[in-house]
């Protein structure tokens, strides 16, 4: 029995088999991945190895690195790891180094490195950029990557893969362990972490943990559900649940929803001081206050977004409430795991649907949770922007030799297949700016001398360090009180739309904008007025394929003669309405509806492929239908389906639909149908930043960098004109198709539709499935006009007087629903 087991026994804690496995594997010098739900004892499973290790041989400077994806996690993680060490009587401490760490503290860490450090992928990259990095980081015994599933599939993950490959090259004996929630592809997740050439040990923890999912049914169910609601009408039910528990974690899907729920709960409970808000844009001190309150048991309710999805290891809460659909099974399991935090306990989750069809989504999620079907996360490959950044980092961090660096890249999943041409291009990009034959005059970044690539210019070095990382910090303004005190950051786009004197809600407060100066928005506490709530970009995940499949199964079950599944009883009137006026969707069929209204002729399709793939599908379908006969469509999509509206009805039949939905020629047609150039230009924003083509400026010194400010859009135009084969442009075009319309999912959807029955219905009114799309309409337009004609038409519309608002009684027949103005 080892020291940790003895300790556990003394405390009366159980030791789990998977923890014992992990400690043994570590002791044998193995690397691997531990996957288990949050709070099942993963942390100790991974940290036990280093602890035992250090009992045998006292650690030197920087022996262990613990990498966490979220700064918000780092504080708690460090505290946890320290507690474990103290319990064993160890006399060394775990230090912290993240973006929140002060520069004085960083200098201290640099001067006398601690035995163990908790850090982020970005901070690791930064550490690699210092000239003595090989000496400092070459002595690492082990690296543990926490919440690896959060990083996998993103460029941050790729950046970390590169950093780890560097560390492996510095010390081939390095032990590498990952912690992950359970994914559909855990083996691949492990291989990506360890690199393609290494064997690893996969350890599964406590998989049988039970999760109990309840749905808070609203008092009244609309037959015409509308998306985009906050669900606040469910507040009474949520209050009841809050009162029944000592502590509750309430998750919303977006930060704006979190702000609204926080306000609402605080204004009705008798204990407003025990309600806390936690999301990624809030200032660190306020985040910490919320975390401390939870730890000390002072918090009755924490309203949070995905910033708390991860393992902030705070004491278990009694219950978790999820507002809105979780959109994926993995996310639901992860969130549920925050309650009944103790190993072996049941996790309880109360789901609050914000519209009627979410009841079905929740039922679908429960079905997949029971089957333990969980989404996979696909790792990215070949992102040249991240590789370019990493090469400059290594050139700064003591320099690199090309052959050694090439084999380091081969030792990653992301660049294992990198071909000679791309490798050559990368080297040219960082040394010459562009291809050798058209060298960029006067360009200097990385310089090759005697076969070693280095950065010698101090200003370039400083600019690079300032830009390390892959998360776009683009266009964020600091929010501060006029009298001092920082509240956090909000996207520039939102703040610049407000005028001084207008009110908005942020960080749980009603604020009045005073002025914006030097990238800082100065505010005072607001008194009254109608506030707006900032909407943060992103965050709207599409419905996962697993969830969508289970939804279709449930529809099919409702369509059979068998009694309606209990979970769907509440939806019976809605399903009945849908079946009566049209038909129910299902796994074996594609439902298509045609309806006419004063807006024009509507064509609805319900492939249930998620919002992103639907955007691609809508554009594709509109383009193919307009190819036969020129016309204009406006398009709207949601997670369930798409809508095309045209002035004249389109005479569709099965043959026409089959042709328009054929997977053949998909890529060519989708490129032609979308304004692909414009989308790629937008996509280029992040790529240009990561690759170092644009510089965001020195923090707090915006003005001095002005001479170097150029938008990525401008850079995109310049490159397209003067260096059209630039591989970063190619990357932008490829990324746009996958990231913005899930091209591979769209391809699978079309292939599936080929096998399906097409159920085409003419409807005399909007059906319950069609209504939410219609209410959300006019998202995009497809036309084949040229640029000038387009601007002229837009100007003509802008100059036309506004139409009077519509009368309130024009809702869909039979429904007492107001139409959106």
């Amino acid at each position, binding site marked *: 029995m080892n020291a940790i087991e003895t300790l556990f026994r003394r405390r009366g804690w159980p030791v789990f088999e998977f923890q014992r496995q992990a400690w043994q594997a570590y002791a044998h010098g193995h690397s691997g991945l531990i996957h288990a739900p949050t709070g099942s004892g993963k942390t100790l499973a991974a940290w036990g190895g280093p602890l035992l290790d250090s009992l045998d041989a006292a650690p030197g400077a920087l022996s262990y690195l613990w990498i966490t994806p979220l700064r918000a996690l780092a504080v708690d993680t460090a505290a946890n790891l320290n507690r474990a060490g103290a319990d064993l009587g160890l006399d060394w401490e775990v230090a912290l180094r993240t973006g929140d760490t002060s520069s004085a503290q960083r200098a201290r860490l640099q001067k006398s490195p601690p035995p163990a450090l908790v850090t982020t992928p970005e901070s690791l990259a930064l550490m690699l950029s210092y000239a003595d990095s090989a000496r400092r980081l070459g002595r690492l015994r082990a690296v543990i990557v926490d919440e690896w599933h959060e990083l996998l599939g993103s460029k941050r993950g790729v950046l970390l893969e590169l950093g780890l490959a560097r560390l492996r090259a510095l010390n081939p004996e390095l032990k590498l362990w990952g912690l992950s929630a359970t994914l559909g592809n855990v083996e691949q997740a492990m291989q990506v972490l360890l690199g393609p050439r290494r064997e690893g040990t996969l350890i599964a923890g406590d998989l049988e943990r039970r999760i109990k999912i309840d749905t808070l049914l609203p008092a009244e169910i609309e037959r015409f559900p509308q998306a985009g609601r906050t669900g606040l009408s469910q507040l009474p039910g949520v209050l009841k649940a809050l009162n029944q528990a000592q502590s509750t974690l309430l998750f919303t899907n977006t930060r704006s929803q979190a702000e609204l729920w926080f306000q609402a709960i605080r204004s009705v409970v008798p204990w407003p001081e025990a309600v806390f808000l936690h999301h990624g844009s809030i200032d660190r001190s306020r985040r910490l206050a919320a975390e401390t309150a939870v730890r000390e048991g002072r918090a009755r309710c924490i309203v949070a977004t995905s910033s708390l999805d991860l393992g902030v290891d705070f004491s278990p809460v009694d219950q978790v409430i999820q507002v809105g659909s979780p959109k994926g099974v993995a996310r639901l399991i992860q969130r549920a795991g925050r309650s009944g935090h103790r190993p072996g306990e049941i996790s309880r989750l109360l789901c609050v649907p914000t519209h009627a069809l979410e009841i079905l989504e929740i039922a679908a999620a429960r079905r997949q949770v029971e089957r333990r079907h969980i989404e996979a996360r696909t790792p990215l490959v070949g992102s040249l922007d991240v590789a370019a950044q990493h090469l400059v980092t290594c050139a700064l961090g003591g320099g690199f030799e090309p052959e050694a660096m090439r084999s380091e890249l081969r030792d990653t999943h992301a660049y294992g297949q990198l071909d000679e041409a791309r490798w050559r291009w990368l080297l040219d*990009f960082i040394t010459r*700016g*562009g291809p050798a034959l*058209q*060298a*960029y*005059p*006067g*360009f*200097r*970044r990385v310089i090759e001398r005697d076969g070693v690539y280095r950065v010698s*210019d101090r*200003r*370039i070095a400083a*600019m*690079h360090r300032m830009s390390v990382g892959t998360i776009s910090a683009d266009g964020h303004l600091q929010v501060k009180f006029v009298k001092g005190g920082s509240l956090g950051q909000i996207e520039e786009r939102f703040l610049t739309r407000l005028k001084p004197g207008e009110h908005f809600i942020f960080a749980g407060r009603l604020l009045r904008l005073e002025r914006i100066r030097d990238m800082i928005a100065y505010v005072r506490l607001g008194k009254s007025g109608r506030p707006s709530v900032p909407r943060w970009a992103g965050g709207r995940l599409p419905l996962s394929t697993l969830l969508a499949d289970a939804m279709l199964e449930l529809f099919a079950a409702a369509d059979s003669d068998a009694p309606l599944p209990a979970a769907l009883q509440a939806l019976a009137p809605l399903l009945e309405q849908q079946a009566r006026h049209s038909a129910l969707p299902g796994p074996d069929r594609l439902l298509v509806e045609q309806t006419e209204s004063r807006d024009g002729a509507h064509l609805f399709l319900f492939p249930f492929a998620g919002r992103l793939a639907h955007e691609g599908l809508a554009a594709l379908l509109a383009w193919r239908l307009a190819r036969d006969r020129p016309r204009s469509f*406006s398009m709207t999509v949601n997670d369930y389906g798409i809508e095309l509206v045209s002035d004249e009805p389109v005479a569709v039949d099965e043959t026409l639909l089959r042709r328009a939905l054929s997977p053949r020629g998909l890529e060519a047609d989708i490129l032609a149908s979308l304004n692909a150039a414009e989308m790629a230009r937008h996509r280029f924003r992040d790529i240009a930043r990561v690759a*170092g*083509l*644009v*510089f965001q400026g020195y923090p707090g010194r915006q003005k001095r960098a002005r*001479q*170097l*400010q*150029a*938008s990525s859009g*401008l*850079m995109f*135009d*310049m*490159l397209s*004109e*003067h*260096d059209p084969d*630039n591989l970063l442009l190619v990357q932008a075009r490829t990324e746009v198709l996958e990231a913005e319309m899930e091209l591979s999912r769209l391809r699978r959807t079309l292939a599936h539709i080929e096998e399906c029955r097409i159920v085409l219905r003419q409807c005399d009114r909007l059906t319950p499935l069609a209504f939410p799309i219609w209410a959300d309409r*006019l*998202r*995009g*337009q497809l036309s084949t006009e*040229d*640029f*000038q004609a*387009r*601007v*002229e*038409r*837009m*100007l003509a*519309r*802008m*100059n*036309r007087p506004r139409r009077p608002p519509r009368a309130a009684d024009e809702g869909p027949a039979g429904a007492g629903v107001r139409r959106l103005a």
Partner: protein
Amino acid sequence: MSTAIQLAGHAFELLPERAVYWRARRSLLLADVHLGKDQVFRRSGMAVPAGVLGTELARISRLVARTGAERLIVLGDWVHAPPDPNEDWPSEISDWRRAHRNLAMDLVLGNHDRALRDWLEAWSIKSHRSALDVDGLRLVHEWGDAAGRPGMSGHLHPGAVVKSGHERLRLPAFLLAGQHLVLPAFGRFTGLMDQTPFPTEQCWVIAGQRVLPAPLPGRSIRA
């Protein structure tokens, strides 16, 4: 397709090439060319391709050829930053000037046109400290220096947002208030500002080969 306006009794054409033509004086006016900006970027390790300078100069050549202009008046910011001694883009400008020997050139010095004295001589450009007065028009870099007199300026890089439904475009713009016209930046490697302190009364945007009247910038009118 250009648009005609009058300032202090003179007729001007607003050209889609981001310039103004004064037919009666055979003069071409443009502002904010920012030559050498790409070089400043490359110097700092940002990989902007070569060729930006050549393209910009060629745009001026085409415009001169098309209009038959005999005089070029630049309303400031001809260059982005003073050249480094080892850079050769200034001599590219010299070559271009030799090819346009008969084109007279005036530059109202802008805030970016610093430490250029020797080069201005080499390029045979006549410089003007804060204003150039021609036929009752005051030509300046920053509109404040026109002191309320009829004239033209640059500096603001004006742009305007055109939006309708889902679509949103940001286009270079000419702004007019009273008898003063602000020109869009001629250089294409420059940004656009859709919020300016200029008290715009009329606005035209450049869309492809046309100059079209547009709603005032900063006031968001939606269709």
